[in-house]
Every structure is written in structure tokens, then in C-alpha cells.
């Protein structure tokens, strides 16, 4: 197991390098023009631009800039660890803003994840056990709709119905939990549900498929043949095999949520990382976009390590081979 983790870690280091390189290329090499110009203000004089270049190291060759960038991430910069750069727009270190926003996105993500796991898995199980009944057909029909419906369309529709028409929801926006837990909850329920819908639908389909496949396995027949009750056969032997792969998928989905939350935050006007990126993009605030992307990617790689370790514990074939 130790060796296994060590190997995964080594691999992850490489992934992080590739991701930082890709991000760096996208934002510093792909666009035409000079990043310094964007920073220097509305009517930049050549002197100001030159000054900015020196201040942010933009005068150095591109590979030196990249190495500095990577070094800052791992070792920190003058604003502490991790070094994520300095916003052109707010003229302050990106880090603080980013972490405040990340906390909001995390609240959105956690709530949605709990919801979609609960709904998705239970609907999947029920559907599989009631295969070819009306319950199954209805659930799978709804799931198909769920995987087909884009989150922003559903979000707008939900706002229209539950806010405009029924007035059950307090509408868009975000209230910090410390200010008013009730309001916080009221404002989060709709975004959670909307964000969870697509995943819940996908998980329901996946769990149903996995469980049906597992129930056809020979070892399920063995479990029945030795006289286990149907509850045990399905609850212990069936679910264990069909839910184990869900761990991997969930880890990846949850970590990628940082990216996917952009749309939800945009629809519900929640000041998370997604909104930060969109506003940064609109203001050409490249360091912020870069920092968010890198942090998101690091989170993904970290989560994939966590998932691998958990999976190793759940599946002895991985752990002991």
C-alpha cells in the first residue's frame, strides 16, 4: 500500500506540472498582445508598461516566468504560501480573495454532493430492484431528463417557478451562514437541488446498471445458495460490488465541481470561485484566472489521490496485487 501511494504521488506531481504548464501556456502564450498592457491601466505609457513588466517579471524569458510561477506555487511568494500571484484588477494578492470565494463554492458543492448521493444512489437501487415496473420506468425517464437538462436552463426555470411564481424561494444571492443560518439555508436549497439534479440522474442510472450487472454475477447465486436472506444478498453482496466503483466516480465529479459550479453560481448570483473567474475574465485579470484554474486542478489531483487510497482499502485486489 505504501509503495502504491508513493507511486501515485509521483504520478500526481507530474500531472500538476503538466497542468501548470498548460495553464501558463493558455494565458501567457496563446493570447496576442502583452499581459502588461492590460494591467497598466486605460492609457498606458510605454514607461508604465515597462515598469509593470519589471514588477511582475514579465520582462524575463517565458520559461523563466514559468519556473518562477511554479516555484511560487510550491514555495510561496512574498505574500506567503502558496504563491498565487497578484491581481491586476484589485491590486492585491490573489490568495485571500480566492480562499474566501472557495469557501462559498465548497458550501455549494458539499450540499449538492450530499443531495445527489442520497437521491442518486437510492433511486438507482430502487429502480434496479423494481426492474421493469412503473417505478423503474418513471425513475429512469426522469433520470434521462436529468442528464439531458443543462444546469443553467434548469436553474433559470427553477428560479422562475419557485421564486417568481410560487415565491417559495428567497431568490438569488448569498447570505453567509454566520450572519443568518436560516437565510443561508433558504438561499442555498435551490442551488443545491439544481446543481445536484444532473449528477443525481447520472448516479441513478449508473447505480442501477451496476447493481443489475452485479446481481447477475455467480457469487450472488452462491450467496443465495448458502441460505442468506434476500436482504443480505442484495444489501451485503450486491451493494458492496455495485457501490465500490461509485467512490471513484464521485471523487472525480466532486473535485471537478469547482469548474462546474461556475454556471450555478452565475445563475444564482453566488459569490464563489466561478463568479470570481467570470469577472476576472471580463476584466482580463489573467493572474486571477490562472490562480483559480491552477487551484482547481490541484484540487482535482489531490482528490484523485484520496480516491485511489480509499479505493485501495475497498478493493483488496488493488491493495494486495
Amino acid at each position, binding site marked *: 500500500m505504501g509503495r502504491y501511494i508513493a507511486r501515485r504521488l509521483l504520478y500526481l506531481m507530474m500531472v500538476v506540472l503538466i497542468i501548470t504548464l498548460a495553464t501558463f501556456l493558455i494565458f501567457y502564450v496563446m493570447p496576442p498582445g502583452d499581459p502588461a498592457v492590460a494591467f497598466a491601466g486605460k492609457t498606458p505609457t510605454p514607461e508604465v508598461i515597462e515598469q509593470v513588466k519589471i514588477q511582475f517579471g514579465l520582462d524575463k524569458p517565458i520559461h523563466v516566468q514559468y519556473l518562477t510561477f511554479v516555484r511560487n506555487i510550491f514555495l510561496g511568494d512574498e505574500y506567503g504560501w502558496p504563491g498565487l500571484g497578484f491581481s491586476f484588477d484589485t491590486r492585491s494578492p490573489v490568495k485571500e480573495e480566492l480562499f474566501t470565494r472557495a469557501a462559498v463554492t465548497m458550501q455549494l458543492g458539499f450540499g449538492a454532493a450530499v443531495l445527489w448521493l442520497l437521491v442518486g444512489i437510492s433511486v438507482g437501487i430502487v429502480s434496479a430492484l423494481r426492474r421493469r415496473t412503473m417505478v423503474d420506468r418513471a425513475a429512469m425517464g426522469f433520470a434521462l431528463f436529468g442528464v439531458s437538462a443543462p444546469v443553467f436552463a434548469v436553474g*433559470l426555470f427553477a428560479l422562475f417557478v419557485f421564486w417568481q411564481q410560487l415565491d417559495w424561494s428567497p431568490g438569488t444571492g448569498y447570505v453567509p451562514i454566520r450572519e443568518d443560518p436560516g437565510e443561508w439555508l433558504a438561499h442555498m436549497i435551490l442551488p443545491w437541488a439544481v446543481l445536484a439534479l444532473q449528477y443525481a440522474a447520472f448516479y441513478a442510472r449508473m447505480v442501477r446498471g451496476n447493481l443489475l450487472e452485479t446481481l447477475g454475477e455467480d457469487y450472488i447465486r452462491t450467496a443465495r445458495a448458502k441460505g442468506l436472506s434476500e436482504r443480505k444478498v442484495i444489501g451485503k453482496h450486491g451493494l458492496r460490488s455495485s457501490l465500490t466503483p461509485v467512490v471513484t466516480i464521485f471523487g472525480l465529479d466532486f473535485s471537478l465541481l469547482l469548474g462546474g459550479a461556475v454556471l450555478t453560481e452565475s445563475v444564482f448570483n453566488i459569490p464563489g470561485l466561478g463568479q470570481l473567474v467570470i469577472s476576472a*475574465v471580463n476584466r482580463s485579470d489573467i493572474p486571477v*484566472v490562472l490562480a483559480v484554474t491552477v487551484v482547481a486542478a490541484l484540487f482535482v489531483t489531490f482528490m484523485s489521490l484520496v480516491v485511489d487510497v480509499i479505493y485501495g482499502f475497498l478493493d483488496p485486489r488493488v491493495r494486495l496485487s
Partner: protein
Amino acid sequence: MSQAIEDFGLPVQGPISGQDTEQVEGRTPRQLFWLRFRQDKVAFVGLAVILLLTLTAIFAPVIADKVAHRGPNDQTLAREMTDEFGLPKGPNETYIFGADKAGRDLFVRVIYGARTSLLVAIVATGISVVIGVTLGMIAGFIGGKIDTIISRLIDVILSLPLLLFAIGIAAACSTSKEGCLGGRIKPGLGLVVFIIAAFSWPYIARIVRGNTLSIREKEFIEASRSLGARNSRIMFREVLPNLVAPIIIYATLIIPNNIIFEAALSFLGLGVPQKTPSWGRMLSDASRLLEVAPWMMIFPALFLVLTTLAFNLLGDGLRDALDPRAGR
């Protein structure tokens, strides 16, 4: 059906006769597929919707011109369809979907939106299928270091927060008219297609690689090799025909993803250019007028969901018919 039935040698059908060498009544794979697919009414509905949408998209100018007598950016009737506060009016007999905030006919814009959606999704899917099949087959068939490199690339791309990257690229390449990478990638439809294709080929590649790996282990590949066939022949004559079914299935299933992808980018203001009608952008416009002009949200959303749903229905149906063992 459970395992038990497969043991009866069901594939062997037909009246038996005195000789093992007598024929077995059989159907070609295509007939079998059609037989199963025909029974899947839901998938058929999906197919019908897609055909209808495609026709609408192709004939959008004709419909707009001859039927509605308006173009997608036609604002000549703006005064007619905006009220005294400059807010758009809702659906009526002439403007069946109502108008948008600039007083343009929403029906015409939605039809043109189908054009954009289908065009972007299908072209992007086509590109990603070409890249995905090529790389997936090479990785699966040749194996070794090449496989390691391609597989890792697939893993890395699939584990990127791709919407963030897409936003990044879209933003980086849209800062000015000359595009990015020294003008090689220009903002506009092409950029959107490029971004979508760049992030969706790994799905195809992963499926193709997996299938190729399992086909490579089949004895008919060894048989071909023992006859002295070269790799190119084995790849194109032996492996590729066996990949057609999974490629069709998964291409059908990533089209709706790509439609949503385009709509999402446009929703965020980073997709197709301003003037091009797009469901995503229409929804973005609608979000600010949700209270006063809900039809601006409802019709594009309806079309968007209907389209993706139709493709998903078709894809599921194709999977059931082409590969009855998977799912269900």
C-alpha cells in the same frame, strides 16, 4: 435474461437437420440491429425529433423568410414588440414565441439557434471522433510507450476542470480580433468548435482504446497475423469494423454533451459571437428579464432540453440495439 439461458446455445437457431454443415437460419448484423431498434419506440421518437430539428435548422432561412417574414436580427418591428418601457412583449398570433429585449422575433431566433447548436455540436463531435478514434486505436493497438503517453494524456485532460480551461481559452483567444496563437485561432464559431473538440476527444479515445485492447486479444487478430498481414491491414480490416458500433453509440452520446457545452460557453458570454443566435446566449439574456419576460427563458430552454434529450434517447436506443449486453 439470466446467465442460465445463454447456456442453451441460443445463437444456434433454426430447424436442425442431419448435418452439422447444414445452414443455420440467420440474419446479418444489420438486420439484427434494425429488428431490435425498430421495437424501441422511445429511441424512434428521439430520432424523429432530431430529424425534425435538423430540417428546421437547415431550412431556418426559408422558414424565417417565407413563414415568419423576419430575419434573426431583424429589429424593424421593434417598436411593435416592445412596450413603452422598452420591455419585450410576449407571445401573440404573429410572434408565437414573443420577442426578446431588442424586439426581435424569438421564434426566428430559436430556429436559428438550432442551427448554431447542431452545427457546433456535430462539427465538434466529428473532429473529436476523428482524433479520438485515431489516437485511441493507436494507443490500444500498438501499446507500449505510445499507449502510456496517450493514456496519460487522456487521463490528464479528463481530470481537468474543463469549463474553467474552456473559459480561459475562450477568454484568451477573444481578447482581440486577431485571435490567438499568432492568429491561427480566430474568435467565433471556429474557436468554440476547437475548444469543444479539444476537450471531448478523450471520451471517444478512451472508449476506442478499451475496445481495441479487448479486440486485440481476440484470436482472429492472431490468425490474421499468422497469415502475414501487416499492421495496417489488421487495424483497418480486422479492428476497425468491430469499433463501428461503439463509435456510433458514443458519438451519439457526446453530441448532447457538446450541445450543452456550447450553450454553457455562450451563456457565460464566451461562446459564439454576439450576432449569432444561440440558445445559451438567449438564456443569458433571459436571466436578467426573468420576471417580466419568462418566455425568453422558456422557449430556448425547452428547445435545448428537447434536443439533448432526443440525442440521449437515440444514443441509449442505439446502445441497446447494437450492444444488448450493456446496460438494462
